[in-house]
């Protein structure tokens, strides 16, 4: 039986880097939410000139490459009633773990940390600039929410949601463009997974930059007569346990797919959830506990089998077991 895409699922031909979608959404929300402020760790130069910085210069702070201080300053702003968004590289900012733990989480702030340049998808800069362990770190912190949108519309929805969310949150965005998977009618629901493709033979659980590849992998598998379900987990914490349990029970096999270490990221989160409620044959697919490296984003996605062909091959291997 072939995969049946829900209305709106599948690629639409539009593609936007989610960090750019973030900036556009924030610039829009800045009009109606004067409490929003942005702290930037020298990312503004590499983002388009229409964003928050240009519209609200007095609420935009260039903090330089001093992420520890940036995080603390954001906490202080939040404790005074501001809604700070911290824009930094995922790899650098997650490294300020103790500042995020103490000044952000343990001080009960509403700081939003936006880690851009997620994963091997950044390409040529190599491992030094890749955020590959950030989800694992952020997920370990009490009260921290972790969100990774899969396209520009989901990013906009997530940012809009984060204006009202209580408590700290981590938003993971990409440097590379992501193909649009959703329609204009898309509504972001915090904590709810999205079934992009229905299927019964196995479930591919994807997030962020790997999600469109997962949808295309389902199309490839359908040609072989394999019916693959695709679930997009945009909220990695708190994760949608009920949807995952349902998928585990109905399809018996799961593959998690992420541009992040398989340890502690989406794969870790799904395993933790299912091991307690619905143990299932599962494969954590992502960066397999190794360093990233330089190369074009496409070459790296091929190497780590994060493109459609790679994801489909990993899914087939699980079916054959």
């Amino acid at each position: 039986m072939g995969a049946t895409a829900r209305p709106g699922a599948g690629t639409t031909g539009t593609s936007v880097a989610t960090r750019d979608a973030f900036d556009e959404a924030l610039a829009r929300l800045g009009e109606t939410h004067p409490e929003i402020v942005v702290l930037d760790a020298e990312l503004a130069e590499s983002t388009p000139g229409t964003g928050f910085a240009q519209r609200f210069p007095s609420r935009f702070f260039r903090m330089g490459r001093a992420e520890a201080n940036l995080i603390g300053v954001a906490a202080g702003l939040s404790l005074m009633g501001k809604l700070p968004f911290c824009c930094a590289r995922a790899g650098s900012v997650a490294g300020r773990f103790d500042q995020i733990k103490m000044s952000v989480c343990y001080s009960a702030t509403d700081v939003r940390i936006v880690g851009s340049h997620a994963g091997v998808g950044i390409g040529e800069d190599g491992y030094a600039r890749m955020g590959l362990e950030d989800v694992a770190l952020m997920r370990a912190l009490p009260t921290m929410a972790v969100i990774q949108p899969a396209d520009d519309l989901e990013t906009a929805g997530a940012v809009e949601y984060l204006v009202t969310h209580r408590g700290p949150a981590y938003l993971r965005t990409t440097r590379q463009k992501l193909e649009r998977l959703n329609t204009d009618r898309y509504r972001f629901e915090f904590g709810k997974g999205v079934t992009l493709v229905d299927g019964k033979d196995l479930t591919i659980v994807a997030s962020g930059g790997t999600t469109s590849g997962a949808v295309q992998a389902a199309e490839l598998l359908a040609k072989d007569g394999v019916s693959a379900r695709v679930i997009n987990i945009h909220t990695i914490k708190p994760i949608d346990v009920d949807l995952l349990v349902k998928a585990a029970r109905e399809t018996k096999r799961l593959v998690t797919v992420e541009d992040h270490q398989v340890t502690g990221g989406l794969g870790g989160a799904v395993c933790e959830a299912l091991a307690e409620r619905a143990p299932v044959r599962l494969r954590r697919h992502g960066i397999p506990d190794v360093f990233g490296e330089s190369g074009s984003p496409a070459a790296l996605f091929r190497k780590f089998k994060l493109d459609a062909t790679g994801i489909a091959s990993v899914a087939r291997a699980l079916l054959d077991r």
Partner: protein
Amino acid sequence: MLDDAMLETLRRRAFDLRLDSLNAVAAAESGHPGGTLSAIDLLQALYFVEMKHRPKEPHWPERDRFVLSKGHAAPALYSVLAHAGYFSTDLLPSLRRLGSPLQGHPVNFLLPGVEASTGSPGQGLSVAVGMALAAKLDGSAARIYTLIGDGESQQGQIWEAALCAPKYALDNLCVILDHHDARKPLAERWRAFDFDVRTIDGHDYQQIAGAFDAARAAQGKPALIVAETVEGKGVSFMENQRASDGVAPNKEQLAQAIAELRAAQPEPA
């Protein structure tokens, strides 16, 4: 200038604050008495002379804020907050006990009057910078104070914050350095970072109040007060004993400490 009656009140309360802090640390059988006693006079001056705040209305939006960056001086902060009326002094002996809001290091969502959770060295100054930035954005007259220690002055984050605060001309920010390690002359470094710096005796209330006045008058620059203090101030066997900080006094030591503090009390007028 503080008048004689005020000075007398502060000196007497300083005795109570030291007593309550030491009792709490002794009851908890753990804590940092040295760094606590060094900070008590500075904290009392902040909460009883300098800051605008309302203990019965801890979330009053116009209040001045204080962040205890050197969070291990928590017993000093707790004693001062209790004596100021934020909560009952009866809570003080519960320091570090299971279920107590008086955690080993301050936690803002557990105790009224605590503005930020601290205790990991070097973080409070950045939080205070953020608060000062927010007050500037809002055109608020609130002033922001933070107490940092010698030890955490080794943290890189302190110097990231030191670069940041002058850039935004945060003259509503007053940083107090509880300085008792003579091996670390820090005043010139802060001046080089473009802070408005003055050095005082951190146990002399007249000098402390004078430094706060001068900091408030400084325009366009954040202020830094190097408060020369004595670790373990008031207790002979704790003074300048780096090794004893982090060790709670036992019963005999506590009795001796209290006797010494009492003997140093001014005669009743």
